[in-house]
């Protein structure tokens, strides 16, 4: 019975085999893509969000904003750099070991990818290069806009009740 079946597989059976193979393959591919996406998507947060503990702990994410003026300090090895990323509302300290992109400058936009460690510092694995002086990474631009609105509402709040404005440093 069996060999016979293989020898004269009818078109209907052939189609069936084909469809089963296709469905299994499709399921595998979808699984592969979803799994890879799930593992490798990095979400983006503003310094204010990070300050409010909205960023994931122990998982890599992206932060965007400006490099705060006067915040860039180099350690003795010449390669480790400490700086502060700000959206002009809240600021997050960051540390990066390696060579920074050409256009990394105080007061300019920056996007960093990394993890927040227990010390509350963003340990950047990657600081993103910009290709043009006038170009602001969209994430950084977005962070600044959000920071501004937060400041505006903070100002409104302070005028209503005086305390708790100094956290904006």
């Amino acid at each position, binding site marked *: 019975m069996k060999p016979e079946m293989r020898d004269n597989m009818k078109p209907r059976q052939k189609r069936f085999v*084909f469809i089963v193979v296709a469905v299994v*393959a499709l399921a595998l591919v979808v699984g592969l893509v979803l799994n*890879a996406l799930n593992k490798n*998507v990095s979400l983006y947060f503003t310094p204010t969000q990070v300050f409010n503990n909205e960023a994931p702990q122990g998982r890599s994410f992206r932060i965007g904003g400006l490099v705060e003026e006067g915040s860039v300090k180099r350690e003795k090895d*010449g*390669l480790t750099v400490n700086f502060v990323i700000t959206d002009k509302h809240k600021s997050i300290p960051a540390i990066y070991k*390696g060579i920074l992109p050409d256009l990394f400058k105080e007061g300019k936009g920056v996007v960093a*990818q990394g993890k927040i460690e227990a010390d509350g510092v963003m340990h950047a694995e990657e600081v993103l290069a910009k290709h*043009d*002086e006038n170009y602001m990474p969209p994430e950084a631009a977005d962070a600044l806009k959000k920071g501004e609105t937060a400041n505006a509402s903070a100002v409104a709040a302070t005028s209503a009740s005086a305390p708790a404005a100094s956290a904006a440093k």
Partner: protein
Amino acid sequence: MIPEIGHFALIVALFLAFCLGILPIIGAARNNPILMGTARPLVHGQFVFLAIAFGCLTYAFVANDFSVLYVAQHSNSQLPVAYRVAAVWGGHEGSLLLWAFLLGGWALAVAVFSKHLPEEMVARVLGVMGLVAVGFLLFMLFTSNPFDRLLPAAADGADLNPLLQDPGLVIHPPMLYMGYVGFSVAFAFAIAALLGGRMDATWARWSRPWTTVAWVFMTGGIALGSWWAYYELGWGGWWFWDPVENASFMPWLLGTALIHSLAVTEKRGAFKSWTVLLAIAAFSLSLMGTFLVRSGVLTSVHAFATDPKRGIFILSFLVIVIGASLLLFAWRAPKIGLGGKFDLLSRESLLLLNNVLLSVATASVFIGTLYPLFMDALGLGKLSVGPPYFHAVFVPLMAPMVLLMGLGPLARWKNFSAPELFRRVSWAFAGAALLALLLPLAMGKWTAMIALGLLLAFWIVASVLLSLRERLAGHGNFMKRARGQSLSYYGMQFAHLGVAVFIIGVTLVKGYETERDVRMNVGDTVQAGSYEFRFNGVTDTQGPNYVAGQGRVSASKNGKLVTELFPEKRQYNSSGMPMTEAAISPGWLGDLYVSLGEPIPDGNGAWAVRVYIKPFVDWIWAGCLLMMLGGVLAISDRRYRIHRKNTKHVSDKIGATNAMTLEGKAS
């Protein structure tokens, strides 16, 4: 005055494109030879006026006419003349003009080299290309006119982005665009087949060389872009899975699938509908590539514009092109049919599997590239998909495809016996596997990824050798048999070898590269791989439009000086932009790569320096060159040329027989 002539030429070209998009297609539908006959003259005219427009813009750049807004934005009087010419396509508007100009060029080429095609086919193909040109010219004239004036004129231009001031970038965009635009020919052939309701082996033979030429250009364009990134961005990477790179990679993947599907359609008459669908998809992705890069949706070096009007225009253009062709496909595809039958085990089914894998790979790149855009558009937050995603998806999809790639050329059409095929390849496969397992041990580091990469590469090489042996071995005249094989056969094998060389490059550079970012005082040495690098300080030099700090680094091996490297850190005068210029000492077995990071403050001349050893990295681009060579060989095949002579012969013969019968009757 000159810019106005250019502007006017564009308008005339638009008018001609309109006629080209309407008259010949109506002519073909009504079988009206006069209307069909308008196609060629219209294409000639369109090309002439696009060339005039392109020439005018080039002139404006060379003559430093800063009263033209686009010139003022992208050039500078200090810029060397060669880069002034390249600056024509250094921005959004000029790139579009280049696109349209190349489209005119491709249409002209089709008009000239299609003497043997039936008139209605030519009319339809050129007509569809005319419609595409209409879309692009409208877009240019309404949203991005390169000839817009700037009044009063700027005293000097804003300069070309320093990253783009490089020989690689003089050629990269035109080459890539030749590929993008070239797929419009395959697309036009597919639409013409749908319109005519006729699609057979002859059709495939016509559109195959065009598709291959486009694919060759695209391969070259992508390879150049990658090479440029490697030596110009200053940190030694050659592919970043950047959305802009993906935008060119997706049509390439589908184009590769299309080439193989066309082969089946030509040889076996199968895969007809699928081929048409692939041609539509490949061109749609080319358009989308333009959209992604030019609309400013994805911000990177290539995103010149951030004007939403443009985005909406291209998006609607895209919807019209894809929507209309898919509707036409749904309506007409039943008429062209699915094509010939084949067994579950046959070269056809292997090629089908290759097509499916390539299409799935394209889809996975598509998802990774556009997922962040969709999330952002839906207000679900900003996120990014990094290179690890693409690695995780791409390797499992490409590994089986490469294994199949070795089998395909050895398998028989229609059906093959699996045991017989496996017996034939078993030694080749075993040899490749053994070598792939042992070689990493000899090189001092064994990982599964290295072994897998080498296995795939060696398997391709082994299968190519096996195929050559089966075809060429035997008694008698070897040269005769070697000459007896078709050029397209050699082309295929060269292209496949190119993939092997490419994989070797990728595998070895990933597996064995050394990257050291170090702080170096003057006189410091650092060990990387088997080389010792000595930093001899930085001195100031002067370029034509920049000042630079030039580092001097000497590399030595076993105490012997190998080479001296001069990496630069440049500061461009007009834009003030800093630029890292890496110094590379290339070699067959690997590159030495040094680039300057930044000066260490209060470091007495100390700098942060990148010192890299990149084994076999040049094989990546050598592989691409081999693939291109394969494509060129394939289109040089006799059967594409013989065709023309044959039709001539036949008509001569018919003439002769007619004459003879006449004579016979007369006598």
